[in-house]
Every structure is written in structure tokens, then in C-alpha cells.
């Protein structure tokens, strides 16, 4: 089978949607809760830290442009430890994906159809995710570009129409010291650290030269960081610390926007594009999970395991948290620790160090990537 090709724009859109797909609505809430008015500084700190993760990802790509994460594990740590890391990665993927699904379902449920059984959302998302994964990476990458445009438009609409509503000064600066800001930056780092997922699609980046891929990764991270910072600034500037009080602050901001001529109430349109983003984010995560499991089990094709694995993921997601309070707590406080101490920061760091130390003794005879 021919390997799908991903060009720069598609790579950028994958990173963009993969992070901003869910965070666009949620991130100001989790950050403001910890860092208060200085939430936007947390976002800047988070972006800078995420750039380090981006550099690590590129360092891995530079050395293994033809392999993906599972093969890199094997090459770096040997067969046994590599496989353990690989299975850990699958579990990490399933856990993260289940939180994404839970967020997607609970927020769309709350906003679109509050009286409908939540199971319906799970089934709908299940169907679309299975379908997208079956169709494959090529279509996913192309649709990503489309939805990226949609999300950027949404973002710009919020920002531009939000300007007249800004009336709360972002002061006092650092009144509680630097510590809450750093604590608040954990959540953005964990979100933007998800860029580690593109290690799974290295072999697809066939058409690029390395320098361009580096700029693509880092520039996209910076753009996402700017988006995060701006959206947090606007949420704080429009709502003030009221943002702490709300379930989805950005949605509340969108509710205040009035474009008198065309649309008086824009919030549903914003949710409309958010659903698109979250669907594609789920699909990309799921694609990576399936690919990883397929490689670990040495299967020929990944198509036959799509449905059972999706079922497992959705069952875990369905039974993950009981209410929104628990979900917010998990997303804001538990997940950053969990992810940063595993595959988003610590393990990439170990990998890069190992690679740096034993650069010349990496086994060359290992297997090749097959889609």
C-alpha cells in the first residue's frame, strides 16, 4: 500500500487541531482557576515550555525520519523495554482519548441537546471516528486543513467582535508572586505537549526537508500559544474573574457577542465549529492508537482492530467521570501531572538523552514502517 503523504500545511493543521480542537473552549477556565488574573502569563510560559517539547519531537525526527514512535522505542531501548514503553504509549493514548471524548460529549450535550441521553453522543462520535479512521490518514489530513480554517475564523470572530466588550483591566500584575503563574502553566503545557503525538506519523512526512518541518512544528506551536494567550486575555478582559465561576468561559464570551446585522447570537455557530475540531482531534488520536497497537502486535493491517479498540476506548470514556465537577478536576489538576510525567515530557526527554549519549550505537537492522 502506498504511504499517505502529508505536506507542511497539513502537518501544521494536524498539530493545530490536535491541540486547539478541545482547548479553544476549555483552556481559559482551567488556567484562570489556578493563576487568576495572570492566566495569560501562564499561557506564555506554557508556550515556551511546549516549544521545548516541540524541539524534542524534531530532534527525534531528525534522527529517525523513516520510523515512528514505536520503532524508535525499540531502536533506542531494545526489544523488551521498547515494547513496554510502546504498550504504555497505547494505554496513555487510550486514557487521553477517553478524556477528549468525555469532554466532547459532555460539552456538546450541555450546549446542543441538554435533554438527550449522553449515550447518543458517544455512539455518534464512535461512528464518525471509526469511519474517519477507516478512510485513512490522507482524507483526515486534508479535512484537517478545512476545519483549521473554520477554527481560525471562529477564533478571529471571537477576538474581533470581543474588542468592544473588553472592560476589565488585567491588573494587578503578579500580585500573588510568580508561583501561581507557574502552577497555572502546567495545564497549557500538558495540552500543547500533545504535539508528541506527531511522532506517530513521521513516516508520512515524506515530501519535506527537515528544516521546513522544524519551522512548521515550532511555528504552529507558537501560533497555538498565541491563540491560547489571546483567548485567555479576552476571556479575562471581558468576564473578569467571573470566568472562574463558569463552566465554559469562552462559550459565555461568545454568548455576549452581538453582530447586529447578520447574527445576533453567535454562540451556537462557535460550538458548531468546535464540534468539528473535537471530532477530528479524536480521530487523529484514535488513528495513532490503532497504528501503535497494530505495530506492537505485528499485525498486517489495522482495519480489523478498529471497531473493537474503539469500543474499548468509548467504554472507558463513557465510564470515566461521573459529573462535570470531577471532569474539570481531572482535566485541570490530574491530567497535567499524569501526562507530563509520562509521555509528554519525561519520556521524550529520556529518549532524547539516550539518543544523545549512544548516538552511534543505535541498531540499524530494525524493522521498517508499514502503513
Amino acid at each position, binding site marked *: 500500500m502506498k504511504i499517505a503523504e502529508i505536506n507542511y500545511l497539513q502537518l501544521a493543521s494536524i498539530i493545530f487541531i490536535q491541540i486547539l480542537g478541545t482547548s479553544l473552549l476549555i483552556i481559559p477556565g482551567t488556567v484562570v482557576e489556578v493563576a487568576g488574573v495572570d492566566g495569560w502569563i501562564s499561557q506564555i510560559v506554557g508556550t515556551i515550555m511546549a516549544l521545548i517539547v516541540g524541539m524534542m519531537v524534531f530532534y527525534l525526527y531528525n534522527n529517525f525520519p523513516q520510523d515512528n514512535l514505536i520503532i524508535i522505542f525499540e531502536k533506542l531501548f531494545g526489544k523488551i523495554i521498547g515494547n513496554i514503553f510502546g504498550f504504555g504509549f497505547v494505554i496513555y493514548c487510550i486514557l487521553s482519548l477517553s478524556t477528549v471524548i468525555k469532554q466532547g460529549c459532555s460539552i456538546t450535550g450541555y450546549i446542543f441537546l441538554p435533554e438527550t441521553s449522553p449515550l447518543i453522543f458517544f455512539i455518534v462520535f464512535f461512528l464518525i471516528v471509526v469511519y474517519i479512521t477507516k478512510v485513512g490518514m490522507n482524507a483526515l489530513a486534508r479535512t484537517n486543513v478545512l476545519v483549521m480554517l473554520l477554527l481560525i475564523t471562529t477564533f478571529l470572530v471571537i477576538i474581533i467582535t470581543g474588542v468592544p466588550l473588553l472592560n476589565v483591566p488585567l491588573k494587578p500584575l503578579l500580585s500573588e508572586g510568580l508561583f501561581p503563574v507557574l502552577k497555572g502553566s502546567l495545564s497549557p503545557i500538558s495540552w500543547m505537549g500533545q504535539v508528541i503525538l506527531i511522532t506517530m506519523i513521521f513516516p508520512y512526512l515524506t515530501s519535506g526537508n527537515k528544516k521546513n518541518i522544524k519551522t512548521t512544528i515550532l511555528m504552529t506551536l507558537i501560533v497555538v500559544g498565541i491563540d491560547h494567550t489571546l483567548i485567555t486575555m479576552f476571556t479575562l478582559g471581558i468576564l473578569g474573574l467571573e470566568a472562574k465561576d463558569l463552566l465554559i468561559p469562552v462559550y459565555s464570551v461568545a454568548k455576549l457577542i452581538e453582530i447586529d446585522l447578520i447574527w445576533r447570537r453567535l454562540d451556537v455557530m462557535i460550538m458548531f465549529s468546535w464540534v468539528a475540531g473535537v471530532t477530528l482531534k479524536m480521530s487523529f488520536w484514535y488513528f495513532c492508537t490503532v497504528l501503535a497497537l497494530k505495530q506492537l502486535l505485528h499485525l498486517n493491517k489495522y482495519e480489523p*482492530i478498529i471497531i473493537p479498540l474503539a469500543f474499548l476506548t468509548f467504554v472507558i470514556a463513557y465510564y470515566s467521570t461521573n459529573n462535570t465537577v470531577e471532569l474539570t478536576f481531572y482535566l485541570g489538576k*490530574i491530567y497535567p501531572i499524569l501526562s507530563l510525567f509520562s509521555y509528554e515530557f519525561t519520556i521524550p526527554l529520556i529518549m532524547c538523552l539516550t539518543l544523545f549519549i549512544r548516538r552511534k550505537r543505535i541498531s540499524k537492522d530494525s524493522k521498517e514502517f508499514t502503513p
Partner: protein
Amino acid sequence: MIIFSMFILICIIMTVIEIRPLKKNDKKKYLVVNGSILIISFIIFLIHEIHNFSITNLMISIFKPFADTIFS
């Protein structure tokens, strides 16, 4: 509950349909893999039904002390 069980049923049928045209050697492998994945998901479902306990709860109970010290 009815929806859920029908959903499981359809999932199993779709999986079988997916595996059927494969070669014999592959078929066995995929049956084992898919079967174990489905069994794991069923166990998770059962544990939640009986003890009301999920993986997220587990994570929360493990990491809560960390979180409390960091975000206090």
C-alpha cells in the same frame, strides 16, 4: 441498557464481518486480538456496573495527593 447491548452486538457483528474475508493464518491472530480487546472492555463495563469504579477514579485516587500539594 437496551441500546447499549444492541450496540455491543452490532460491534461484534461488524468485527466478524471485517475479519471474515482474511486469510486463515491472519484470521486466528485477529480473532485473538479482537476477542481480548472486547473482553477487556466488557470487564471494565462490569466493574463499573458492580463497584462503580472506573480508570479515571483510579487515576484520581493515585494522583490526588500530588495534585493537592502542587495546586494547594
